């Protein structure tokens, strides 16, 4: 049994490393299309991490909504705007070094804080199982108000997106 556990642990760390490598690809690659593909890979890795953390429903939602919908939307936008493989266009602004230094300080500070804080890890929480039924009951019971607010936001964003993205000129109808 301990062999299996060690293998699972190694696998989880490998998934984390993969996510970080793909995230680095997202922010450093020149071609935006490659960035979007790296984002999809990082999001799939995150779904795997959700499975490790025993949130299987969230993993399914992550694949459906992020990888299925958001990445497709981003690729659409890239295809509609970007002139792919333009080598001469600069991709970064001139503040790369400053941002890097500031972020190194930020990461060092927060790493120290995370390692110092005594997190209240409880055995009851570790052994608790979250079922999809429990999630649905919480969504319809305790959290019904934010749920309704989300639905209003979704409909507003839907209408707003159509209004913003449609062509203004009535003469320009195809």
């Amino acid at each position, binding site marked *: 049994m301990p062999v299996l556990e060690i293998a*699972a*642990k190694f696998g*989880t760390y490998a998934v984390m490393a993969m996510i970080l490598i793909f995230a680095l690809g997202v922010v450093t690659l020149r071609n935006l299309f490659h960035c979007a593909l790296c984002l999809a890979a990082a999001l799939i890795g995150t779904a795997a991490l959700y499975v490790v*953390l025993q949130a299987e429903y969230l993993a399914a939602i992550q694949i459906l909504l992020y990888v299925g919908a958001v990445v497709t939307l981003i690729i659409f936008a890239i295809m509609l705007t970007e002139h792919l493989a333009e080598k001469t266009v600069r*991709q970064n*602004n001139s503040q790369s070094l400053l941002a890097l230094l500031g972020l190194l300080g930020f990461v060092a500070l927060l790493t120290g804080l*995370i390692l110092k804080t005594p997190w209240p890890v409880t055995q009851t929480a570790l052994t608790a199982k979250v079922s999809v039924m429990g999630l649905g009951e919480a969504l319809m019971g305790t959290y019904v108000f934010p749920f309704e607010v989300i639905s209003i*936001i979704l409909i507003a*964003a839907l209408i707003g997106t159509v209004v913003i993205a449609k062509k203004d000129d009535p003469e320009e109808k195809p």
Partner: protein
Amino acid sequence: MIVLPLPHILIFSLFLFAIGLYGALVRRNIIGILISIELMLNAANINLIAFSKYTSLSPETGQIFALFVIAIAATAAAVGLAIVLALYRVRKTVQADEVNLLKW
């Protein structure tokens, strides 16, 4: 079941957040900035789920709020990309520092 120490997951998501923040600060392309913001929201989601797994009294709470974050991220991406398309139609650019009509 396998149990990683909680600080390892937190540090991992901190790195993911920092990478996303670097992208959001440094990229010139507005779509690149939006992609980086998605990465940052993802890191926050990992934190929410890790906390709901390790420390929470009612284990559903973290997952429910992660669901809300995913829904908001989807709307943010849709509205943001619609704005980018409208901008591209008018100004023929998607670089954030070339959108300077209101600057002097």
